[in-house]
């Protein structure tokens, strides 16, 4: 009887493992568990990725932060980051310092800064869609606004 149960468990594990074969794993599927470091993007028609890259460099220079996603929209610039495990006690101070640094270096930009995993995940998903070209500029901008609104609801 025990052998039958063991056999069923092994076979079900075998078939479940087979389900994952030949399926391309998207970065967003593992975005909460590993460092994804998505490339900074912009939703603007006049693509100016340099500024988004500069912002990402500035944010990454903070020692407490380790995974940064930057999406630059026409109105807002979304900056999402993960905080190192032992530094998570100082989340508010990190956010404050980051806001100050970004406002000093890029005074013309309107920043939305967040360290929430959900916002990070949505930023990576949006990033993937923009890269694959499945979203038009206006739709990408609209989705970015939705994500920004999500961060405002948390405050």
């Amino acid at each position, binding site marked *: 009887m025990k052998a039958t149960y063991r056999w069923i468990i092994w076979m079900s594990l075998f078939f479940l493992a087979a389900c994952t074969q030949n399926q391309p794993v998207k970065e967003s599927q593992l975005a*909460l568990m590993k460092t994804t470091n998505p490339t900074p993007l912009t939703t603007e028609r006049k693509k100016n990725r340099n500024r988004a890259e500069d912002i990402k460099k500035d944010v990454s220079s903070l020692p407490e932060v380790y995974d940064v996603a930057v999406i630059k929209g026409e109105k807002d610039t979304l900056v999402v980051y993960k905080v190192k495990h032992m530094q998570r006690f100082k989340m508010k101070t990190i956010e404050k310092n980051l806001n100050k640094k970004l406002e000093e270096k890029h005074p013309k930009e309107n920043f939305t800064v967040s360290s*929430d*995993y*959900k*916002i990070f*995940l949505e930023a990576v998903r949006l990033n993937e869609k923009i890269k694959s070209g499945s979203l038009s500029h206006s739709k990408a901008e609209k989705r970015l606004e939705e994500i920004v609104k*999500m961060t405002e609801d*948390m405050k």
Partner: protein
Amino acid sequence: MASKQKKMTPQQKKYQTLQQKHELKRPVLKNCIKAFLVGGLICMIGQAVSYFYIYYFNFTEQNVGNPTVATMVFFSMLLTGFGVYDHIGQFAGAGSAVPVTGFGNSVISAAIEHRTEGFVLGVGGNMFKLAGSVILFGVFSAFVVALIKTLLVMWGVL
């Protein structure tokens, strides 16, 4: 305690030493390890549930706690009903009682125990017999902490 020992007869003292000699020692370290592992496993499941809500629903890190707690309590209620949680509790002790699943277990076990006394006076009246103190002191301590925070914010400390 000291006065009690003084009053003991020699025969009682002899019995006490004999009893201490044969008394089974509590495996404290082993129990702690068991509680740590099972408690950690329950928390890991909780983390997986919260990631599930973040991935597939519109919950952020700040508000994902509410559905996660509700789901964990629901799981423990099912396990209590099927009689599985009793075994987990016997094995892990505090490891299964301290997480929020222990709360669900205490509610449902009291409800099952008093089912024979009827729905209103039995289940309704006794359901929160064990969990009632958790709710009372939880609400009261939340009130005190909120009061302190409000005062600190008003005085400009925070």
